[in-house]
Structures are given as structure tokens and as C-alpha cells.
């Protein structure tokens, strides 16, 4: 009898929280990668690359979190490449790579490289490649609903089922600063289905498409730059 009395929403919390932790796992993610090479590549030991966010004042911008992720993952590992972050690069070359006036083509880069101050700084820092990242993650086909309310006793409880399809599409355009040419374009597309069933506690099964695209593109960048014989 006593056991029945103790069987309240409150006493369910402990196992539910543990169960949520165990069940919060990734949904399935499918990745497609493409590579278009325009020229041979290679990087010296004293050279670095800069990973830059392609920003547009009118269109969509890549999330800062993705730029941070790809910068970190490209620099990491045994095959990691020394990377200058977007923030550090645009500060070092201010104002030439600000969103409003940043070069949008290799021709534009060549034009501003005639400025000795820019050219000398690029050389002194050993910047060999500029990697422009563009793209974003979107959530499409959201279905179902999830409603949360305060149950008896003032405890919040959620009920329902929510699902959505997430798509992350990112591309990297790589410019060789030394030769003033575009050497290639890489892309990673990641798709996945996420769902959140909720009976009192919502249990999310989230497809981490952005994180998968980040890992895939970072590996591609390293392989592309180091893999093409100069």
C-alpha cells in the first residue's frame, strides 16, 4: 500500500531522467560529398591556411558555430593543418575582408594583393590558402506537435510527437594566395530525420546534420590540400 502511495510523478523523475540520458541519441544521418579540383595543391611546413566565413549582407550567412567547428576540426589530428581563424584573419587584414568589401573572386583578390601592405602581411604570416565557407543548415517538413503544461502538483509535463527533416549543405571554395588562382571546390551535404516523442518527458532523437557535415568537410579540406601534389 505504501509503495503505491510513493508512486507519484515526482518519484518517476529519477528513472525518467536517467532513461532520457540513455535514449537521447543521434538520429540517422546520410552524407554526400563532392570534390571539384581545378589545380594541384600542397602546403609547406611553414605555411598556413585561413578558414573564412563567406558573409552576405542580403542573403543567408553560414552559422558562426559551423565556422568554429570546421576551424577546430581542420587543425586537429595527425593530418591537421595550421589554421588562422576567420576572426583573427579579418582583424589582421581590416578592412579588406569585411563582409561589405571582401573579395568575391580571385580577380578581386589579385586586385587587392597589389597593395603592398596586404601582400607583405600575407607573406609574413605564411598564408597559402584561403578557404571560403558558405552554406547553412535548414529544418524542413516539420510535422506533429508537442504540448507542455503544468500537471497536478505544479510539475511541467509534455505530450505529443514532433518530427522534422534537417538538411545541412556547406561548400568550401579554396583559393591559392601564392598563385592567385582558385584550386577547387568541395561540398558536404548531410540529411537526417529527427523526432521527439513525449510522454511527460520529451525524449529527443536528433539527427546532428551540421556536426556531420562539419566533420566531413574538414576531412575533405585536409585531404584536398595535402593530397594534391604540387
Amino acid at each position: 500500500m505504501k509503495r503505491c502511495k510513493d508512486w507519484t510523478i515526482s518519484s518517476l523523475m529519477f528513472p525518467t531522467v536517467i532513461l532520457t540520458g540513455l535514449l537521447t541519441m543521434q538520429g540517422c544521418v546520410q552524407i554526400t560529398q563532392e570534390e571539384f579540383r581545378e589545380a594541384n595543391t600542397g602546403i609547406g611546413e611553414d605555411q598556413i591556411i585561413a578558414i573564412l566565413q563567406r558573409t552576405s549582407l542580403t542573403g543567408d550567412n553560414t552559422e558562426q558555430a559551423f565556422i568554429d567547428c570546421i576551424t577546430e576540426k581542420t587543425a586537429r589530428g595527425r593530418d591537421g593543418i595550421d589554421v588562422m581563424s576567420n576572426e583573427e584573419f579579418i582583424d589582421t587584414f581590416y578592412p579588406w575582408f569585411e563582409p561589405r568589401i571582401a573579395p568575391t573572386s580571385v580577380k578581386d583578390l589579385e586586385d587587392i594583393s597589389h597593395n603592398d601592405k596586404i601582400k607583405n602581411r600575407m607573406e609574413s604570416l605564411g598564408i597559402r590558402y584561403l578557404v571560403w565557407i558558405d552554406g547553412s543548415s535548414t529544418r524542413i517538413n516539420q510535422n506533429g506537435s508537442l504540448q507542455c503544461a503544468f500537471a497536478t502538483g505544479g510539475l511541467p509535463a509534455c505530450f505529443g510527437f514532433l518530427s522534422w527533416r534537417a538538411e545541412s549543405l556547406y561548400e568550401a571554395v579554396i583559393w591559392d594566395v601564392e598563385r592567385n588562382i582558385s584550386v577547387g571546390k568541395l561540398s558536404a551535404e548531410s540529411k537526417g530525420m529527427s523526432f521527439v516523442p513525449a510522454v511527460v518527458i520529451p525524449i529527443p532523437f536528433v539527427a546532428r546534420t551540421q556536426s556531420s557535415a562539419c566533420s566531413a568537410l574538414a576531412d575533405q579540406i585536409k585531404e584536398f590540400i595535402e593530397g594534391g601534389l604540387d
Partner: protein
Amino acid sequence: MKNKAKIFNDWCVRATCITTVFILWGCSSGAHVVPSVSIPDPLIDPFPKTVGIYYPPELKEKVHEEERARQKYVVELGSNQKQVFDSSLGGLFEELVSLESATPEDAEVDGIFVPEIVGVILATPADTGQDYYEVQIRYRIELFDPNGDEIYYWVINAYGKVHRRDYGSVMERTSDALQQATENALRDASTQIIERFNPQSRPDVVSNWLSTSRNK
């Protein structure tokens, strides 16, 4: 053991309630933004001129306030204006002097800049249905010769935006997002000021002023 489970259960209940309160609070609040922009020294060759700048009190103390849908938005812009103009004009000209008046009698300068903010627009994803927090600051910047005659004026629409996803997926940090968007707009203002002195962008009257030397 039963005691520990009870403590844990109580803790879970409290944590859930506190989280709910925070979610509700996050939903209902506007934003109070105090930007702190950092603009590096520009990588450009300065013009061989000494110019003055007068910061009107309305600019130095500029606070933008607006209220909509029972949410109040406050952006303190004044304290960052010195950084915007010191960086841009300080990089464009060999020497930049801060003036106490727009019409000084004894200042040895080639020209005097007087900036003002004539408009501010804030937009959140809730307003636009887009994924961005946006800030637009409209400046009017006048350039006078040492006699107080206007040489030219520029109207600059400085713009900054940030992606909502970088500021939380459940509880969006509106103040943080608007702060970064404001800082991006201030940086854009500085960039545009520099860009307006580009030989392809500047008007003839400004080119003529740049090519003349001061009568001492």
C-alpha cells in the same frame, strides 16, 4: 538509499521548475544591449592631413529605445562612437584631433568631421520571420573646411546581422544576439567610412580637398 533518491527527486523537481521559469522569462523579455565593439587599425596608407572631429553630446550619449509587443529594447550606442571614428578617420588621416566645438577658432586642422546618428532599426526573427537578428544604424557625417563651410556630407547605412542559431536553440539569447549584430553594424560603419575615401567611391569635391594643402 531511499533518502538519496528522494533528494535527487526533489532536486529534479526544483531544476525543472527553475528551467520553466527561465524559459518563460526568456520569452517575455526584450533586450538591453551595451555593445563593446573592437575595431582594429586599418591596413591602409593615410592621407597626409590633420583633421578634427567633433562628437556632439547627442552622439556621445545616444541610447536607442523602442517598445513593441510589450517588449522593451534598449541599445546604448553612444559609448562606442569614439571607437568607430577613431579607427576609421584615425586610419585614413595622418592625425586626428578631437575637438570641443564644431567651429573651433584656433584649431590647426585641414577639415572637421561632425557625425550624427539619424536613425536606428532593430529587427528580430519574430519581426521578420527570417533567421537573423539585424541592426541598422544610419549616420550623417559632415565634413567642414577650417572656416566652417561644408565641403560634403555622407549618409551611411551601417548594417549588422547574426544568425539566430548561434544564440541558443531553445532559449534564444536575444540581448547577446542584438549586441553582436550591433557590434557588426558599428564595424560596418567604420568600414564604409574608409571605403568612401576610395578613389573610385569619393566625389570630386572630396578628391579636391584631399589634394589641397592647408594655408598656414
